[in-house]
């Protein structure tokens, strides 16, 4: 059963058409890696799923709820679809622990003590048990991004959306974030990941999607596509990211 279903989704920004009648089904448990040239609509596609962008045409159903069914329903979708941003976007006035405990308290109504306990466990899971009392400004980029992952997981989503989670990081800090993402995938989390990390795509991804100019032009098995694709533009794209 699909957890995300794009039905001829169109998205425009003023006169610019960014998504062109996109059809896409994603099943629970899939780890979809989304690649494509800059400006091809990857971020927009991801942001339509949790309704950070409003679609202009077609329909988009997430966990049986349409993104067009009103504000309160949209909030339910967002609770089921955690998001990790390129720039981390941690809440700067809160410690790492408070960042992670925040969602359960304010979204799910979990009691503070319980939220803190869960947050500690999640920080331990992303390898930051010792960093709970640090503010984001006191953490490295890789640590901040791992806190951001824990923050999203704290709300207990069914689906995780990652928008270039390692692009803002120095190369030597990327692996610690990728390791957390890999273990999340191994636990069976449904994930949609925009990334240029081709090793991650090959080793962790169950599906690779290549976007061009607001459309999905290639959709298949990562290992096969990376080894020998017949699509000339994907071939060229892959030569540039390597």
């Amino acid at each position: 059963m699909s957890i995300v279903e794009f039905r001829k989704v169109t998205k425009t920004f003023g006169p610019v058409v960014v998504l062109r009648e996109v059809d896409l089904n994603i099943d629970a448990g899939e780890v979809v890696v989304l690649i494509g040239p800059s400006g091809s609509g990857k971020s927009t596609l991801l942001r339509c799923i949790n309704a950070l962008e409003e679609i202009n045409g077609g329909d988009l159903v997430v966990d049986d709820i349409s993104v067009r069914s009103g504000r309160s329903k949209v909030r339910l979708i967002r609770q089921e679809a955690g998001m990790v941003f390129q720039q981390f976007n941690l809440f700067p006035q809160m410690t790492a622990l408070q960042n992670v405990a925040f969602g359960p308290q304010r979204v799910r109504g979990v009691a503070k003590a319980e939220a803190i306990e869960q947050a500690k466990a999640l920080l331990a899971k992303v390898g930051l048990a010792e960093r709970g009392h640090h503010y984001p400004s006191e953490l490295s980029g890789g640590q901040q991004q791992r806190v951001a992952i824990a923050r999203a997981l704290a709300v207990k989503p069914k689906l995780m959306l990652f928008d270039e989670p390692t692009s803002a990081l120095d190369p030597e800090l990327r692996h610690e974030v990728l390791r957390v993402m890999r273990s999340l995938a191994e636990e069976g989390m449904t994930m949609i990941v925009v990334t240029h990390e081709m090793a991650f795509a090959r080793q962790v991804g169950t599906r690779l999607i290549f976007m061009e100019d607001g459309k999905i032009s290639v959709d298949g098995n990562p290992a096969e596509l990376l080894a020998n694709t017949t699509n000339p533009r994907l071939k060229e794209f892959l030569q540039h990211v390597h």
Partner: protein
Amino acid sequence: MEFDWSVIADAMPALLSGARLTILITVAGLVGGLIVGFVAGLMRAYGNAIVNGIAFAYVELIRGTPIVVQVMFIYFALPVLADIRVNPMTAAVVSIIVNAGAYIAEIVRGSFLSVHKGLKEAGLALGLPMWKVLVYIIGPVAFRRMIPPLGNQFIVSLKDTSLFIVIGVGELTRQGQEIMAANFRAVEIWSAVAILYLLMTGTLTLILRVTEKRMRIL
């Protein structure tokens, strides 16, 4: 001419009661001004076209006219126009509320909108309603950024109370003026008045410094 300290000693009780009134008008006016300013500023930042337009008109009206004209209007014109009679003290407090409110609205709007939009998106992406994003995420960050410009406005408003001499409120400047009219000791009286203002604004500055130091500016 020689500086006569006894003049100051004699004038002090009256000047202090004037200073007390100055503080009272300032505090009451700024408490109200903060409420009005937050509401108007958030209307400007997040309201639809109509809501935004109302707040915009208010801010422009107040910023475009001198505070003396505003207090004259409230004290002398409102009774004629709308049969609303107010005593000088009320007119003074309302003037500060209305006047500071407009400037604070711009401070509030600016600092809320200066918060990186990624924070709003991160909050919304967790499934929070917008008002919770404002209260728990953007508000606290914006609030820290507001402290320096708010401090400025507090000091401006405190000094603006001296203009209420025109409607006969017995605040510090008025007290100084009355004593001076009786004893003609301009140097002593206006020195004392100036120093009392400096003590009040200095205290305010000190409080703001401490607050700023305590809060990490984000």
